[in-house]
C-alpha cells in the first residue's frame, strides 16, 4: 500500500490540498488549533467552545477558498490566514451573542494587509434562510453513496473527471461523466420535485 506523506512545510501542505488531498484538512486543524484557542480566549474573549467552533469554520472556509481557485498562492503563513478568518468569525459570534465587542488587538497594525481580505467570506454567508438551508443540506443525504461521492468530488472538492474515476473505481471517464450527469438530474429532482 502506498502511504502518502504528510507535508511538513506550509507551501507543501498548501500545494497538496490544492492538488486534491482534502483529508489534510484534519492536519490543518490539529496543527493550529491549540494556538488559536489560546489566542481567541485570551485576546478575543471567546469561550473555548466558541473558539473551537469558529476555528472549524475558519479551516473549512480556508479550504474552500483554495479549491475554488480564489486563493492560488500563499502570501503569508497558513496560520496567519486561519487566524485572520477565525478572528472575524469570533467577532461575529460575539456580536450574535450580544457580548461587548472586544477591541481588535491588531487594530491599526498593518491596516489593509489583513490576509482574510483576499478571501471570499461569502462562502459561509450565502444561506441565511434557515428553513431553505436545512432543506438543501438534507437533499444530498437522500442520494445513494456513489452519487453523493461523485457530486461532492466534482462540485465541492473540484476533482477532474479522471480523478473521480480513479477515486471511486469507475470504469472510464465517459462512464463517470454520465454517472455525474444522472446523479445531478436526480439531485435536481429531489430539490424541485415538480421537474
Amino acid at each position: 500500500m502506498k502511504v502518502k506523506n504528510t507535508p511538513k512545510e506550509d507551501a507543501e501542505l498548501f500545494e497538496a490540498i490544492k492538488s486534491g488531498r482534502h483529508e489534510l484538512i484534519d492536519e490543518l486543524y490539529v496543527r493550529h488549533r491549540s494556538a488559536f484557542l489560546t489566542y481567541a480566549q485570551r485576546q478575543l474573549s471567546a469561550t473555548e467552545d466558541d473558539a473551537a467552533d469558529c476555528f472549524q469554520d475558519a479551516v473549512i472556509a480556508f479550504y474552500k477558498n483554495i479549491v475554488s481557485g480564489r486563493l492560488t498562492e500563499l502570501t503569508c503563513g497558513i496560520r496567519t490566514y486561519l487566524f485572520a478568518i477565525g478572528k472575524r468569525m469570533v467577532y461575529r459570534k460575539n456580536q450574535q451573542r450580544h457580548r461587548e465587542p472586544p477591541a481588535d488587538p491588531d487594530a491599526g497594525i498593518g491596516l489593509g494587509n489583513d490576509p482574510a481580505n483576499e478571501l471570499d467570506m461569502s462562502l459561509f454567508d450565502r444561506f441565511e434562510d434557515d428553513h431553505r438551508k436545512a432543506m438543501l443540506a438534507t437533499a444530498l443525504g437522500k442520494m445513494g453513496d456513489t452519487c453523493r461521492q461523485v457530486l461532492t468530488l466534482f462540485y465541492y472538492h473540484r476533482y477532474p473527471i479522471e480523478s473521480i474515476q480513479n477515486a471511486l473505481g469507475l470504469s472510464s471517464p465517459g462512464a463517470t461523466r454520465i454517472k455525474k450527469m444522472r446523479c445531478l438530474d436526480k439531485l435536481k429532482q429531489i430539490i424541485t420535485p415538480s421537474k
Partner: protein
Amino acid sequence: MDKDKRQDRIDDHLLGRDSREDRLELEEELARNADLRTELADTELAMAAIELGEDRALKARLQALESKLADTTPGTTAAPRVEAKVANLADRRRRTETRVVDMRRRRKGNLNLLGYAAALLLALAAGWWAFSAGGEINPGQLAMESFEPYDNIATGTVRGNDEQTLEAAAFADYDAGNYEAAAAKFKELPESGSNVNRFYLGQSLLAQRQYEEALTVFRPLMEASGFPLAKESAFYHAVAQLGSGDINVARSSLTRISESASHPLRAEAKALLAKM
C-alpha cells in the same frame, strides 16, 4: 446542442473554469434563452445543496476531531501535549496499517488431497473438451465468454423515491439480470431518448445473444459525437460482430481498439483477441 454539452458549459461557468469569451457568449445566450436560464438556476441550487451538505460533513468531521482532542487534554494550555497525543495516535495507526500479516499455511489435512484430486479431474475434463472441440472457434460462445453486462452507471439509489418511471423500471430489470424484460422496456422508451438508454438496450440484447439487433443499436452510438460511452460502444459492437459470426471483421475492430492507448476497454479487446 445536446443536454450533456449544455450542462458542461453551465458547470464550467459556475465553477469559474470558462474563458472570458465563453462567459460572454453564455451570458448573451442566457439573455435570449429561458430554458438555459432555468437549467443554470437549477444547477446553482443543486450546487448549493452539495455545498451545504458537504460543509456539514466536514464540520462534523472536525467536531469529532475536536472532541477527541478535548477529551485528551482539558483546557487549551496543554496544547503541546494534545499534539503529542495526536502524533502518537497517528504513529499507532501507521503501525497498524503496516502490520505484517502471518502468511504461514495452516494444516488442512485431507482437504489438500481432495483439492488436488478435483484439480486433476478439472484438467482432464478441460483436455477432453479442447480435444473434442478440435480447436475451432465458436464465435457465439467466445463472444458470450467475453461479455459481461456493463455496470449500471445511469441510475443512482434515491432513498424514499417510490414513483418508478418506465426508464427506472427498465434499469431495475437490468440490475436484476432480467435482460429480456429490460430490453422490452428500453425499446418502449422514445427513440429520440438518451443515447445512454440505447447503450443499455444494446447491453440487454447482447446478454440475450441477439447479436444482429445489438449491432444496429451500437453502430450509431459508436459514432455519436460527444457521447461519453462511444468508445465502449465500439467494443460491444465488435463483440456483437464476433457473436454474429463475422470473425475477421470482429478481429480488425478489436485490433483497432487494442492499439488505441486511451481506449477504456483496451485490455478486454486484447484478451478477446488472444482467445481468437
